[in-house]
Structure formats: C-alpha cells, structure tokens
C-alpha cells in the first residue's frame, strides 16, 4: 500500500464540527475561512481542519489555532476577514474573539489555561480537537491502530482479557459491569457453530446526554479499534454498531470510518496479515429509549420489536440469534485501545478504589459552561460544577444535580463534595448512568423535575411488563395532581409504595430505575412536596397552577404609567384597567399562564 505524502502547513485551524457547533454554522465559518485564506494568498500556509466536538459547547462555534493552542469562541462568519488578516497574515492573535471568564478582566488566549479544560483528563476523548474524524491517517498519526497491532501480533486472547481486567474498566453505559469479566464470560460461552457477536451500544437516549454521540462524531476509529481488540479477545467474527438515527453526523462519520478501515484492510479478512477476520455493520435505531436496554437492543438488531426480555439468560450466553454476544457502550469501547497500548496498570492508577479511569459527562442545565467534560473518577461534584462548569449563571444558588439521566436521581447541594464513582452515586440514590449531568438552581421545583423525568420514562415505557406500564402511569398521575395543588398527604405514601414496587418488579432497567428521580426528591426535598400539598404553593413558582398572580397598583402606575402591555397580552381577558390607569387581575378569569409576569417591564406583576 502506497503511503501518501501530506503537504506541510504552517498553521492548522482546528474548527470544531461537532453537532453543537455545526448547528451554530461551523461549516459556514469553515467555508468563509477557506475563502478568506485564499483571498489573502495563504492557502499554501494555512490549513482548515474540521474536528469533532471540542467540549466547550457553550461558547461555540469554536476554533483552535495550532501551533500555539489559541482558542477562539462564539465566532461568526463576519469575524472571519479580520481574524484571517490579523492572526494568520500579521501574526497578531485577536483578543476580542478569545474566551473571557465572567469574573476576569482579560481574555485567556491559550486553551490549556482555561479553567474549563484545566482539570479534564482525556482518555476516551484523547483525540478531541486534534484529528479530522473523517481521515483515518489523522487517527493513525495519534497512535491509532497501534494497540490493535499489539493485540493481534503480541497478545493471546487471554492476555487481552487479563489486561482489561487489570485496568478495572467497568461498563460506561450505566450499570458499571466489569468489562474484563464480561469478555471472559462471552469467551467461555460455548457456541455450537462457533459464531459469537460483538455489539457497540450507541443508543444514547437520555435527555441532555451526548457523550457517545460526541465520541462517534469526533473519533469513530477509537470505537472500531476497541471493537476489533474485543473481537480478538472473545473470538467474535461480526460486530454491530447500534446507533440512533437521530444522530445523522455520528452515523455519517462512523460509516466513513468503517469504509476507510476496510480500504486499509483493518476490517475484513486477514487483518494486518495475521489471519484474523472481523467486520462491523451499522444498525440504525429508530429512537426508542428502551432500545438502550441490552436485550431490547438485540431484539431490534434482529429485526424484531424493540422490547426487553427476562434475564437470564444473559446476552453473554444467549444474545444475537441465540449466540454468545458481548455488548458494551461507545465510551467503553473507546477506552479499550488506550488500555492495551498503555497497559491496564496505567489505567487503574487513575480513579478510586472501585471505579478506575475517567468518565465523560455532559454538563447541562443551569450551568455557565455547558459542554462535554472528561474527568478522573473520584473528582467531586463541586470541582465539576464550579471549577470546570464555572458555577451557576446569574449568581443563583446551586440546588441539586441530576446524574444518570431520566432514570438517575437528584443529588442535593449538601452533597456537593461527594466524590463521583459508581458506588458513591448509587449510595446517594442516583447512578452513574451513561454520564448525563443536569444542574439545577434555586428556581427549579423538585416536584416538577420528578414529574418531568417520570413523564419521559412513562412515555418511553415499552408496555411489556405491568409494573412499569401501569406503575409509572399511576405515579405520574399522582405527581401531576400534586403540581396542580390537588395532592393529599396519603398520595406521598402511595407514591413511595408504587415507586418501590416498580423498582422491584419491573422487567428491565428502564422500569427498575424510572422511580429514582421520585425517590431521591422525596428523600432530599420532601418539604417541597409538603408545601405543594399542604400550603398549595410552589416555592420556586414553577408549578403555575399553584401561582397567584397580582399587580402592584403603585408600581404599575408610578413606574409603568399603566402601560397596558399586560392587558393586551392576556389571552383570557383577565386583566382590567385602561391605559394610564393601574391594572388589576380578575382571579376568576385568570388561567395562570404567567404571560403578564413575563411581559411586564416594571416588575409590577407579582407571583405568590
């Protein structure tokens, strides 16, 4: 195979082309850059490279200039001519396009000096921002497929499994099952005709979670290489990547990567001349949350209805078409090549006693620095939320964080120094899950949060088993009643009883974890439920049916001069008063939509 020689450029402009930045016009910025670079005659000196997600999605579209690691943010097409002339032509980095932390007076030019990036440790995201995900050569240059070469030529299957076991790697999809043990189980499971399968679970369905999507978009070859190594370890000949069809960019890039790997002979027959055969097929999921559950996912790959089945038998014994099947999620696979390359001991040196390595979290909600972060296990919530996340916007108070997606739990502010690992999160009533982290501030109503997450899981319940189908519905009805001020104290007892029953009796992980938000909010924020039930009030003013809107006549007249905006915007004609007069709300007509509160520019509308 001929080795292509790449032209050398003086500067590489690493333009983030993750889904977040792309929806903020990253591709238009790339085009504008290329056009302007050509106009300035720099096309032989400067190269524009599109990369996967950089992580700091809050400040997108992003671009990093290398060498120098100069970080530009919130770019627009309009900024491009000035940027190209100043930085690329004249060598003067443009301060006004750099990141300026809210509390600082001067911008921080260099990426590695920005707090958001400083505390992160990149293992699964090792290539983020450094490679073009659509170029296999970029991946290879960053030690890609080196671990595969080692695994195929220098290691036996047992040695590979031993290395993974030593590393202490646990499943990054939620339950945290030890990966080495799972591989051993699949390897030991007999298969009558020798067929064994391997699956990558990319059915990331948690609202606000985008770890797996980012890995598939930014570094698809790391997943392919991980699967190849896993295949050799367990003796599989065919792999599947199950990915949501709602992730078009991830699907596109993984398909490109698979094609390139095949062209290079890194997939298919006789890989690297070692006689090892393996190939991977992409299966697109139709976006049913339950298909993230392994037995439902396998049913979906087989072309059947995506519904779970009782375990045992576990997929390790009877998986796809009844054959032993190893199923791990995207992030788990992406960790495998590094472990083989650098050794299990190295990986195990990061993290806590029971949780090794790093974990990728998507940090969303009421947080300054929304984005994707990879941190060592054992880091505290405080470090993630304040040091990396930059705290809560508007100087508001931190109230709770929901970890583990809709089936995780809410961890209250008192537990902010909790070190993050599988055990500590479970003990706090939540779970690692796939790594979603939704931050909530003082304006969040915890009853409403529980209702919201339960409405999601209830909607996504496949309906196969009664506890989940009926139980989540009954729980949701109670929660809705409470948020409407129709709850009773007996409701809380019933809610708790139902939650425990659904958790105990449901068939699969969806039902077993769906009550978590309810149970944790009852555990840590019971007083908020009581206020909703007894006082018929929502302390955060989120549950609108419990709100009473009124207009302060003095403020309305003195500050607003009876501006009449509220009356004109009121859909139920509940506001009385002519222009120039103090306005008043007719409580019998008010439907508590809150529009008057939102439109009043003078703070005259009060909510109690």
């Amino acid at each position, binding site marked *: 195979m001929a080795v292509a020689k790449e032209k*050398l450029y003086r500067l590489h402009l690493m333009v983030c082309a993750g889904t977040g930045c792309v929806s903020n016009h990253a591709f238009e910025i790339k085009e504008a850059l290329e056009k302007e670079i050509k106009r300035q005659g720099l096309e032989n000196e400067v190269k524009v490279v599109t990369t996967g997600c950089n992580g700091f999605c809050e400040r997108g579209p992003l671009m990093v200039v290398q060498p120098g690691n100069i970080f530009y943010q919130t770019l627009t097409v309009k900024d491009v001519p000035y940027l190209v002339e100043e930085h690329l032509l*004249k*060598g003067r980095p443009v301060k006004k396009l750099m990141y300026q932390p809210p509390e600082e007076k001067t911008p921080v030019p260099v990426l590695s000096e920005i707090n958001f990036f400083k505390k992160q440790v990149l293992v699964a995201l090792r290539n983020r921002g450094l490679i073009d995900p659509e170029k296999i050569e970029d991946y*290879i240059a960053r030690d890609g497929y080196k671990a595969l070469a080692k695994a195929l030529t220098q290691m036996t299957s047992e040695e590979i499994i031993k290395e993974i076991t030593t590393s202490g790697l646990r499943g990054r999809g939620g339950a945290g099952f030890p990966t080495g043990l799972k591989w051993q189980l699949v390897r030991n499971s007999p298969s009558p005709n020798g067929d064994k399968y391997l699956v990558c679970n990319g059915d990331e369905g948690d609202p606000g979670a985008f770890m797996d999507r980012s890995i598939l978009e930014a570094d698809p070859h790391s997943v392919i290489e991980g699967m190849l190594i896993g295949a050799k370890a367990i003796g599989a000949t065919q792999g599947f990547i199950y990915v949501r069809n709602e992730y078009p960019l991830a699907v596109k890039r993984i398909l490109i990567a698979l094609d390139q790997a095949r062209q290079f002979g890194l997939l298919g027959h006789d890989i690297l001349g070692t006689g090892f055969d393996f190939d991977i097929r992409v299966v697109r999921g139709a976006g049913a949350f339950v298909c993230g559950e392994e037995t439902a996912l396998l049913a979906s790959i087989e072309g059947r209805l995506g519904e779970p089945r009782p375990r045992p038998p576990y997929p390790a014994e009877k998986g796809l078409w009844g054959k032993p099947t190893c199923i791990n999620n995207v992030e788990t696979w992406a960790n495998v090549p590094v472990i083989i390359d650098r050794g299990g001991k190295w990986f195990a040196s990061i993290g806590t006693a029971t949780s090794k390595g790093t974990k990728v979290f998507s940090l969303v909600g009421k947080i300054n620095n929304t984005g994707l972060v990879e941190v060592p296990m054992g880091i505290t919530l405080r470090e993630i939320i304040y040091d990396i996340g930059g705290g809560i916007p508007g100087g508001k108070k931190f109230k709770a964080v929901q970890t583990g997606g809709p089936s995780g739990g809410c961890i209250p502010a008192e537990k902010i120094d909790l070190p993050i690992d599988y055990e500590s999160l479970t003990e706090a009533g939540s779970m690692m899950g796939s790594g979603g982290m939704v931050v909530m501030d003082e304006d969040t109503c915890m009853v409403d949060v529980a209702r919201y997450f339960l409405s999601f899981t209830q909607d996504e319940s496949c309906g196969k088993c009664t506890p989940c189908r009926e139980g989540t519905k009954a729980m949701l009805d109670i929660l809705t009643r409470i948020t409407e001020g129709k709850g009773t104290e007996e409701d809380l007892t019933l809610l708790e009883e139902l939650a425990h029953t659904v958790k105990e009796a449901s068939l699969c992980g969806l039902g077993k974890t769906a009550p978590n938000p309810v149970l944790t909010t009852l555990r840590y924020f019971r007083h908020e439920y009581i206020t909703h039930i007894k006082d018929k009030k929502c302390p955060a003013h989120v549950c609108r049916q419990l709100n009473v809107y009124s207009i302060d006549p003095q403020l309305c007249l003195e500050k607003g001069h009876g501006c009449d905006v509220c009356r004109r915007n009121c859909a139920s004609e509940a506001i009385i008063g002519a222009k120039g007069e103090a306005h008043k709300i007719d409580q019998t007509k008010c439907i508590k939509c809150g529009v008057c509160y939102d439109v009043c520019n003078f703070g005259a509308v009060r909510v109690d």
Partner: protein
Amino acid sequence: MPKLTLEELEKIREEARKSIFIREQGQFKAKIIVHMGTCGIAAGARNIMNAFLREVEKRGITDVLLTTSGCAGLCSREPMATVELAGQAPVKYVDLTEKKAQEIFEKHVLGGQIVTAYALGIGSEKTDL
C-alpha cells in the same frame, strides 16, 4: 486492494505524524519566529517564512516549531526572524534572504551554531520592570 502490513501501518503513522505534529503541545527542540508586521511583509517576510517551511517539510522534521509574530520594532532591518533553541536565549536575525534562512536553518536550528554574520544580537527586550 493490497492488505496493509504491520510495517506499512507504521510507515503511514510516521508520514501522517509529520503533517499533524504542530497540533500537539509537545516539546519542541527549536522555535523559529518570523516577524510579520506590515514592515516585515513588505520586505518579503512571507518568502522567508516559506523558505523555513520548505526546510521543515523537506527534512520531515517534527520538533521544530515555525510561527509568526508582529513587528519587532526594527523596521529598517526587516525581514527578521528569531530562533530560539530550547533552554537557550533567543537570537534575532536581520536583513534576511531565502538563502540566509536556509543557512540559519541548517547551522543554527539543526546544528546549534549561531550564524553570527546575520545575527543582530542575543536576548530580548525586558517586558516587565
């Protein structure tokens, strides 16, 4: 399609590294700064920069960083470049031509010997008093 062998994979890696090494925050043996203010550009700094770039490319070197900066303050002696070997004081070169740049690359950047004939001086101005 011929199959990729282990050796070929390593060859691809070696070749690909040569084009992407500048993205990594690694240790560089030397840093070349071409001064590209308006004065420098007018005096032909772009050709000097390209001359250095060609040297790096030709030799497949991955531990020399080529970068630019603005006017160095001595506009009459442009084009100028500063060469900084790791752990050593920077050296400023003045009145450069492509040929001089080649020589500086060979003797100073690779060989560690300052080309005194073209050098203005060693060190930089003070920036904090």
